[in-house]
């Protein structure tokens, strides 16, 4: 009798949870940097990667504005013995940052604030001295 009762009550527990909700995660609400944008398209945009490209294109736009305002690319010979323009310095900054982050990812599990700081310092160094 006790077993029968338990058996009869089982569906009740399922009803309490709600049918069809098993193993379903609650839908996150609001903005997320890492969710697919526009419901997922083949280019697989997320807000985070979009921000990266917006940043790069914004930097290039700033260089264009600077070039129109002060033409000539601010060419000079830096401490590495290279003759660089503003565009060269941006290129060296970005490429160097890539390697700073890759080295960090390859060598440690620590958080990414340190390489971010290193990359910013590298950028300042590039625009100041290189």
């Amino acid at each position, binding site marked *: 009798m006790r077993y029968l009762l338990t058996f009869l009550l089982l569906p009740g527990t399922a009803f309490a949870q709600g049918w069809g909700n098993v193993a379903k995660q609650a839908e996150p609400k609001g903005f997320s940097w890492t969710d*697919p944008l526009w419901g997922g398209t*083949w*280019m*697989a945009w997320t807000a985070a*990667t979009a921000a990266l*490209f917006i940043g790069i294109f914004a930097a290039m736009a700033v260089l264009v504005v600077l070039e129109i305002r002060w033409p000539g690319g601010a060419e000079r010979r830096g401490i590495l013995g*290279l*003759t660089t323009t503003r565009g060269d310095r941006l290129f060296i900054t970005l490429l160097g940052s890539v*390697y700073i982050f890759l080295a960090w990812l390859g060598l440690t599990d620590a958080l990414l604030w340190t390489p971010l700081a290193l990359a910013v310092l590298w950028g300042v160094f590039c625009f100041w001295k290189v």
Partner: protein
Amino acid sequence: MKTVNQKAWFFVLPVLLLVAFNALVPIMTVVNYSVQETFGNNQFFWEGLGWFQQLLRSERFHAALGRQFLFTGMILAIEIPLGIVIALSMPKKGFWVPVCLVLMALPMLIPWNVVGSMWNIFTLPGIGLMGYFLNEVLGIPYDMTQQPIAAWITIIVMDVWHWTSLVVLLCYAGLVSIPDAYYQAAKIDGASPWKVFRYIQLPKMRTVLTIAVLLRFMDSFNIYTEPFTLTGGGPGNSTTLLSIDLVKIALGQFDLGPAAAMSLIYFAITLFVSWLFYTLMTRDDQR
């Protein structure tokens, strides 16, 4: 009065559009894929920088990268000096000039996968001319399907055969553009052939050599078709260069995320080495 005409920008527009579609859109897509996981059907799951971390620590990637650098280093060390020597020994005028030029251009006209197949058949031990000759006539065991060393020799000889011509033609173009006055001055001063080479021919060839080294570096670093057709990356993994490994991960295993991360690291290496070559080889011009 100086007139400023900005109309020329409009003529660049088609190229910009073309580059946007064949370079910019793909690379943005690769960046997006490299931080996500997908099982197809345009469903993506955020992965962060996990693929990069995994890849940078994987033995398989290190091995493929090492093989790639070994391959590129070896073919550059052979093709550049060999190309210069051949260009120096080619006739400068007369009947033989076009004959030499056409002979030199021939290997470059052959489609890459055909080059791979040709060398595959050529070096197979049972039926290939070279394979049969080495094994049966000279008695040297040579089987590029079984011995890693033989496979490496075959892909390197194949690349040298295919691409030394490019270095030759570029160097030759640099050589014939040197005015005779330089040689006459060298003769009057009694300069030795080595001095002529070191102080006249080599400096005059520097620009084209820069281009040759850059082109050969980028091409050989990204090489896929010929070794894939020839050895398929084997025996074992011994000739699995970076690009072959990349295709295995992307299309064989359909791991698009790791493959995208690998492509980006690959791209960063190519970009850095090309920049380094270019900067070092053009640095003297800026002084």
